[in-house]
């Protein structure tokens, strides 16, 4: 394995290591398959035999890059303890969700067992409940003025239904209560 850290549900470092193992497993496996195919067929054909696995390998590498960089950001930043805790919670949600979206990869390459997968599913749902009370402050922190959001559903004050009626009033079909097309001959009179 790229990183021998044993997997443990709830440990961000263990998740990051598992994401790294998936990336390494994906890349080395497809590299080996390519090398073998090159012995028996022309390069373009060998490459084509592995395209799906190559794409999966690149995505796994990208995921590892993302989590590795964020882990460093969290460890290096000097914000308050409250911010640190919130970033750790967000990271845990991201990691548990990433595992839940690619369970097969984490069993095949990441060193997780079926039992780990079951535990992760429950862990993710617990984390969501933990994150829930912070949802609005976390999105408020994106610091987006209403005019930049420009949505009937997403304004700061939450006055959703009034805005929806106001937007509907702009429809040209609401200009007259009886649209002009009604004054054409009715089908029954044609």
């Amino acid at each position, binding site marked *: 394995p*790229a990183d021998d850290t044993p997997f443990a549900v709830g440990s961000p470092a263990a998740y990051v290591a598992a994401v790294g193992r998936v990336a*390494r497993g994906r*890349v*080395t496996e*497809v*590299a080996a398959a390519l090398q073998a195919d090159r012995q028996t067929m022309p390069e373009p054909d060998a490459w084509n035999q592995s395209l799906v696995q*190559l*794409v999966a*390998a*690149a*995505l796994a590498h*990208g995921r*590892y*890059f*993302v*989590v590795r*960089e*964020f882990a460093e950001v969290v460890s290096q930043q000097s*914000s*308050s303890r*409250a*911010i640190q*805790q*919130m*970033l750790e919670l967000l*990271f845990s949600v*991201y990691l548990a*969700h990433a595992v839940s979206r690619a369970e097969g990869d984490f069993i095949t390459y990441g060193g997780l067992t079926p039992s780990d997968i079951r535990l992760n599913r429950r862990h993710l749902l617990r984390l*969501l409940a933990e*994150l*829930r*009370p*912070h*949802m*609005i*402050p*976390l*999105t*408020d*922190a*994106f*610091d*987006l003025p209403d*005019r*930049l*959001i*420009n*949505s*009937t*559903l*997403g304004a700061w*004050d*939450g*006055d*959703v239904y009034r805005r*929806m009626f106001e*937007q*509907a009033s*702009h*429809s040209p079909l609401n200009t007259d209560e009886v649209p002009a097309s009604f004054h054409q001959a009715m089908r029954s009179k044609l």
Partner: protein
Amino acid sequence: HPDLAVERASPAFDIEEMTNFVDGGKDKTEMKRNTWSKVLNHPELRNTKATEYMSHEEKYRYNLSRATAMLKLIDEEGMDVNEISKVMSHTVSGFTTPDGNPLAVHQVMFVPTLMNQADDEQVSRWLGDVFNGTIVGTYAQTELSHGTFVRGLRTTATYDPASRTFDLHTPDVSAAKWWPGGLGTTANHAVVMAQLYTDGQPRGIHPFMVAIRDRETHRPLPGITVGEIGPKLGQNTLNNGYLLFDHVKVPRENMLMRNARVNEDGSYTKPSHQKASYGTMVFTRVAIALDTVDALQIAATIAARYSIVRRQGEPRDDGQEPQIIDYQTQQLKVLPHIAACYVLRASTARLWEHHTHVTSEVRGGDTALLPELHATACCLKALVTQDCSEAIEALRLSCGGHGYMTASRLPALYAYATAGATYEGENTVLLLQTARYLVKQAGGSHAPPAAGSAVTYLSR
């Protein structure tokens, strides 16, 4: 709304401090707010119109006038060209040009290309006209039947030492330039990527600065066919266009020569590095990733606030229907994507810092880090646009029928993010470029990665 007031009553952290984290520092938050304030209060920008019921041409005119006002604002404020793409991030551009910015490619590709690929003499020759608005440009690479496989482009630029000109030619309609934003009716110049031939030898794809319309009359120049390609899923006033050349003569001095050169006698000097001319694409891909996270942040904010306000279900003991966010299914639709906003933004910002560092190294002649940067930028652009596109769709679904309304803005945000999965390198092709680099690393046929490299895990 009382339910939102409850949510905001006692946050567990300092929201301003978290905003500073998201922006990359207190100074960046201040700079951002300062810019937004100027945009939102600018006399030509502050009053907006609903564009949903406008015709295609009315929308174009409206968005172009606002894009022009934005350019004037950038000029008035003397903003650094390197800051422009950040200023024009989706947050602001969705306000200034809600249906797509016809000048976006001018700002985020044409200008950076000139800065990075023109030599010093060329920069001084053109940049004044670019900044005073005489030259409006675009970046013409993709062809009607040739996309991300850049080596397969078929537009030719054949050098003639006698006239010291390149003959720029579109061999058939399949090689028509197709897609560049602003090319339709906005730009009067284009950086055109074409197969260079000197001494009868193919030299690969190179960039050329080409005038396509008269600066005074805006009429297409002789030998040039140009127009707009028509409506798309979203971003309909980006003014994507087509362009064909019928043996158009381009002066030798108009090949961008920072990386490769053609001398008067036709002798050719290769670029110092095979990927040296990829600088603009790398820059743009990192910018796309950041910009798409920006769209995800907006979608997440919309879905979060709606999920608090919306109540639906059997009334509880207090007589109120439950808030939809208290359903586990809704939490799974919304909350992981808020986490993704934080993780993807910070990680992509790190890649931006890396890009800035590598670009300065390349300018100093050291191209060692360029292959890894190129591979990482390809990969991140693909991963982030794919993740954000899927996430925005999930957030749209979390808002039920109201998320299907244009007025929610979620359809436009989805169209924006999913466009990012297609343009500036279709994602599968980009991922295969990354994979090629990774396989070489795994097989040991590349130089060992430098300390701190993102691929050291492969060489263990």
